[in-house]
């Protein structure tokens, strides 16, 4: 399956891009996606465990299932308000 991963704020600075398509073997969870991201973007790997993940605009835990076509967002600590 392929998921589209969006990077924001510091995460985008570590990866050098705002989005990237990641291929995962089915079935896959958020944890699998985190591992794939750490492998693809070594500069992101150090901070990634402290970042949250959202799937299709909802925060998602590491054991959440992913499906082909999901929009996965890497969310560094937020600073709104």
């Amino acid at each position, binding site marked *: 399956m392929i998921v589209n991963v969006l990077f924001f704020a510091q995460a985008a600075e570590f990866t050098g891009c705002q989005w990237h398509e990641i291929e995962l073997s089915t079935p896959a969870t958020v944890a699998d996606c985190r591992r794939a991201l750490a492998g693809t973007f070594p500069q992101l790997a150090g901070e990634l465990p402290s970042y949250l993940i959202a799937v299709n605009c909802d925060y998602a835990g590491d054991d959440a299932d992913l499906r082909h076509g999901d929009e996965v967002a890497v969310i560094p600590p*937020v600073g709104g308000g």
Partner: protein
Amino acid sequence: MAGLRHSELDEQRCFAAVRSPECGAMVVFAGTARRHTGGREAVRLRFFAYEPMALREMEAIEREAIERFRLAACAIEHRLGDVLVGETAIVVAVSSPHRAAALEGAAWIMNELKRRVPIWKQEIAPDGAAIWVPNQLQTQGAAPSC
């Protein structure tokens, strides 16, 4: 009413959005760009959002606040892009029959907003250097529930 805007926010519009003849209390909280934070000086702030998710979270916070504090109405607007020192970055307006609920509701909304809405802030120093400034969260269990 939740909104993300790239132009100046208008506190009066938010007041108008929540005014009601059944309400005795309206509170408008405005978060403005400060010149000094800690030891740093900023000339402006710059906000970025994951826009569709930020709007969803803002709308969810509004619904939760209305239920939790029995508010009559609620409006949240956040500005994106460059915000000069002194300008308003966030406006939260609530109305309620009673003032304690309105004040507590506004405080709760601001805490939730700073905790879970995917918006990020850069402080821009006088020399143009930009640093990311995450919110300092005031409660335990600060990470959004998954």
